[in-house]
């Protein structure tokens, strides 16, 4: 095979040596194979296509694994002094690649301790590599939990979710990670530590989320590692009545018997945590579904309210063949939702809330899935029993290839408008997979937030395999078209609940307006030397001018196609 090699740009030798003296030789490397292990994030086209095109950008110059905040500070000081761009890495899933060759990847995997759980103040202080499932496991022992878990699964790290998404199935009550952060410690580009919230005041405890006066955390949230590196995060905890640990999944697959186990349905049927219930409702049409979402969320019941759509085809299917078969048959009801109830105050609360739910179901012509109605369907949905609290099957969505997602937000009624935009996107750009039609032929994934004040809804694209550049490009074009179509229809900014990445930021002056100009100022303050993932969230003027014409032209072309 005569494919050209991809060689990373290395660090200057004296810089490498200095970094080595900080962490020791076992925890820094520029070995070609080790570096390759950091060459991909999740399979968003923006991260896969460069691999197809053999771009150097995808490869870090070196990987370094610090163990303490002091080591991170020292690393940053060296990087700053020498103009070395850095990118922090936890799971390395979303937006974690460097943006230019010669980037140092700081992998936080050794900083995985829960520093403190304060039961009285209901807080937990974490190092950056602590995951949702670790945090939940430890706090549930004490009758507390963090309030939810993303479909990105329980393996994601709260610190990186803070600078990323952090959206949960229990947002009806708990309102995403945004509502649940008390403080952060962030290493700035000069190596100093910025502390937010009451933790920043000498003598005060780490218990209150607002900094005095204007709150910089408003800018740091979803900043994708472009403002600094988190070395600690303190999150809120809430009452948990579901027992000291999850009841065990009663089945255990094995490698050789996997397909037999699938046929025997002997696993993936975890019991619900105690004092919690999940109800699945099936609606006759979209209007009734949306009306039910309004009524249920505004009735005050429940901790989670979501509609699952095509996602169950993936999450609840233990093989891809099942996924395709179910999608073809329309196995899962297109108009549906699930409601999570918790008896936090008492068991009578559960009884009351179920009564309210039944009333609303009657009003909106919904049927409950039960042992008397669609029992096989209900049985298939069993993974949700624990997935709702601590998600894991979410990655099944990536079996069929996965190329990204779009998550617009707004009033519950906006969901229908978004479905129309999505349908148009598929017509104009073209499908890559039948499950692209989730969101049109069935409900998108809807998360109702903050007691129904608003929602965000999600559709994803699936190019069938990650090794097909054309399929990936098609999926990418779908996302990009959708981005601008949402802007044109004034539907919602941002592709993922408002998160922002270049080149879309600078090519979408409608947002803000001119939000990129404002955030350039923020970037100037926090990253004057341009070491933190340069150009990831916002381009400087020079960086904007340097965008290759080919990319500029195709972005502008898609803008036109979307009507902008």
């Amino acid at each position, binding site marked *: *095979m005569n494919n050209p090699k*991809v*060689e990373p740009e290395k660090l200057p030798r004296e810089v490498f040596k200095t970094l080595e003296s900080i962490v020791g030789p076992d925890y820094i*490397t520029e*070995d*070609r*194979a*080790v570096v*390759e*292990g*950091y*060459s*991909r994030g999740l399979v968003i086209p923006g991260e896969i296509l460069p691999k197809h095109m053999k771009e150097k950008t995808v490869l870090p110059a070196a*990987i370094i694994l610090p163990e303490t905040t002091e080591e991170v500070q020292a690393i940053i000081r060296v990087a700053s002094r020498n103009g070395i761009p850095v990118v922090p890495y936890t*799971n*390395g899933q979303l937006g974690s690649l460097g943006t230019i060759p010669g980037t140092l990847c700081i*992998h936080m*995997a050794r900083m*995985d301790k829960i520093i403190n759980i304060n039961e009285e103040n209901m807080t937990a202080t974490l190092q950056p590599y602590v995951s949702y*499932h*670790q*945090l939940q*496991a*430890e706090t549930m022992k004490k009758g507390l939990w963090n309030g939810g878990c993303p479909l990105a*699964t329980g*393996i994601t790290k709260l610190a990186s979710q803070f600078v990323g998404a952090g959206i949960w199935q229990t947002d009806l009550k708990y309102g995403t990670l945004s509502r649940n952060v008390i403080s952060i410690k962030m290493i700035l580009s000069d190596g100093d530590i910025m502390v937010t919230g009451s933790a920043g005041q000498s003598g005060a405890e780490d218990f209150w989320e607002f900094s005095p006066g204007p709150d910089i955390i408003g800018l740091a949230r979803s900043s994708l590692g472009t403002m600094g590196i988190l070395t600690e995060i303190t999150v809120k905890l809430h009452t948990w009545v579901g027992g000291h640990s*999850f009841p*065990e*999944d009663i089945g255990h*697959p*094995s*490698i*050789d018997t*996997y397909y037999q186990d699938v046929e025997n349905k002997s696993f993936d049927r975890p019991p619900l945590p105690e004092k919690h219930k999940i109800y699945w409702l099936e609606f006759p049409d979209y209007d009734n579904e949306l009306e039910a979402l309004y009524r249920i969320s505004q009735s005050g019941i429940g901790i989670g309210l979501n509609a699952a759509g095509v996602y169950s*085809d993936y999450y609840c299917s233990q093989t891809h*063949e099942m996924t395709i078969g179910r*999608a073809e048959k*329309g196995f899962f009801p*297109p108009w549906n939702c699930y409601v999570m109830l918790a008896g936090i105050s008492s068991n009578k609360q559960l009884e009351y809330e179920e009564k309210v739910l039944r009333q609303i179901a009657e009003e909106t012509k919904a049927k409950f899935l039960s042992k008397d109605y669609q029992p096989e369907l209900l049985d298939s949905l069993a993974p949700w029993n*624990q*997935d709702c609290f*601590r998600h*894991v*099957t979410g*990655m*099944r969505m*990536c*079996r069929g*290839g996965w190329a990204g997602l779009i998550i617009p937000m707004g009033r519950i009624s906006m969901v229908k408008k978004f479905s129309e935009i999505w349908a148009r996107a598929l017509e104009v750009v073209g*499908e890559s*997979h*039948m499950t*692209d*039609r989730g969101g049109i*032929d*069935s409900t998108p994934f809807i998360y109702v937030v903050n007691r129904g004040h608003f929602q965000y809804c999600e559709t994803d694209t699936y190019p*069938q*395999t*990650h*090794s097909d550049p054309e399929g990936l490009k098609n999926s990418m074009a779908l996302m990009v078209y959708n981005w601008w179509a949402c802007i044109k229809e004034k539907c919602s900014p941002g592709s993922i609940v408002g998160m922002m990445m270049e080149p879309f930021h600078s090519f979408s002056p409608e947002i803000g307006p001119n939000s990129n100009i404002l955030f350039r100022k923020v970037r100037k303050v926090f990253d004057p030397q341009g070491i933190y993932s340069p150009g990831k969230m916002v381009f400087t003027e020079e960086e904007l001018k340097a965008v290759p014409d080919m990319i500029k032209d195709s972005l502008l072309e898609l803008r036109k196609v979307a009507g902008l």
Partner: protein
Amino acid sequence: MNKNSKVKEYKTRFPQPEGFGTLEDYRQMAWDCVNCNYCQEMWSWDVKSAEFSYICPSWAKHKFFAYSARGRSQIIRALLEGDFDYKDSEKLADIAYRCTFCGACEINCLRLMERHPVQMIEALRSELVEERAMVLSEHKAYLESTIKYDNPFAAPKDERLTWTEDLDFNIKNLAREKGEVLLYIGCMYSLETRVRNTVKVFAQILHAAGVDFGYLGIEEKCCGMVQARIGERGLFEMLAQENIKAFNNLGIKTLVTPCPHCYYSFKSYYPKVGKLNFQVLHFTQYLKYLIDDGKIKLNEMPPQTITYSDPCNLGRWAGVYEAPRQVLKAIKGVELKEMERNHDQAWCCGAGGGVLVAYPDLSTWTAEQRVKEAESTGASALATACPWCEYNLETGIDNRKSKMEISDIAQIVYKSMRGGKNE
């Protein structure tokens, strides 16, 4: 939902290669790693503490992604695509070989993505050894020994008889006599002094139960598992062909082995080469049958709490989770307490995949972690059903100066048979 879809669908995931796959057979699989990291950490529902939430020993120790299935997938992809060459990395062999083949990554990846990362890594090792002569010196010693002595441990063949010296009965050699059941000992049990005593117990139980069994004595050859997993498939195939022929000629109905590596080799690897015309059981499965059939009488033991460590090849690879547990639960006085990582999420003992000999630092560290986890259950004893586990976990116990005792399940059964608390 697909009413208007115009797109043709691929229904199968990754067609399994005939026999062993080459690295090229895994190109698509390598591309399709989504970097979810469930090859490193537990299935989220099962996590019970932060301390015991990782599943991949090699990643958990070294922490660079390259040492997990995720990293290895990307490396394999890059090698196949020519992004870099085998000789461009000093650590490539290290990355390929610092893996015990415990399969923890494989079960999670299968369950989520229907991928087989260990198969891919095995193909990489085969590529390194058979195509590029990049074999570790410690593994080379294993291979040379196998050729010379029919075992990887450079032990003269007649050492396979040592364990029989104190037996108070004659054990048939099925190379010369007929019998229904072949007790296939395996090289580790036969030749590793630390676990050799356990072997007697297997024979004594079968004898006491009146089973018509025998062994192969010095005619027993290595099952070939460790050679296959090191990457020397040719040598494995040779051993397998020889063994299949020899076993099929014995006229046995059942092959029982106490070693999960051998068990898995016969169950899952040998079919790539030929067919065995008898059933293959692990010793704990046979024990269960003997107990259920009343051929073994169990007496009450002094009250004790025992925790059981699933051997990877028995549990996660082959799906034999319950037989060992049912055997333990059948003994009155024994309370079984599960570790946090159990069944398909069990933490490896650290000995498999050629790691024990090539990377004692990783092997020992892994065992120490498992012992720590066992201690956290409050149990007084750690039970297992594998010589590699027994060996390595005992190292872990010694290093941690732990008060736990390690026993094979058969040893506990035998104590119970001999009177239990009244012995």
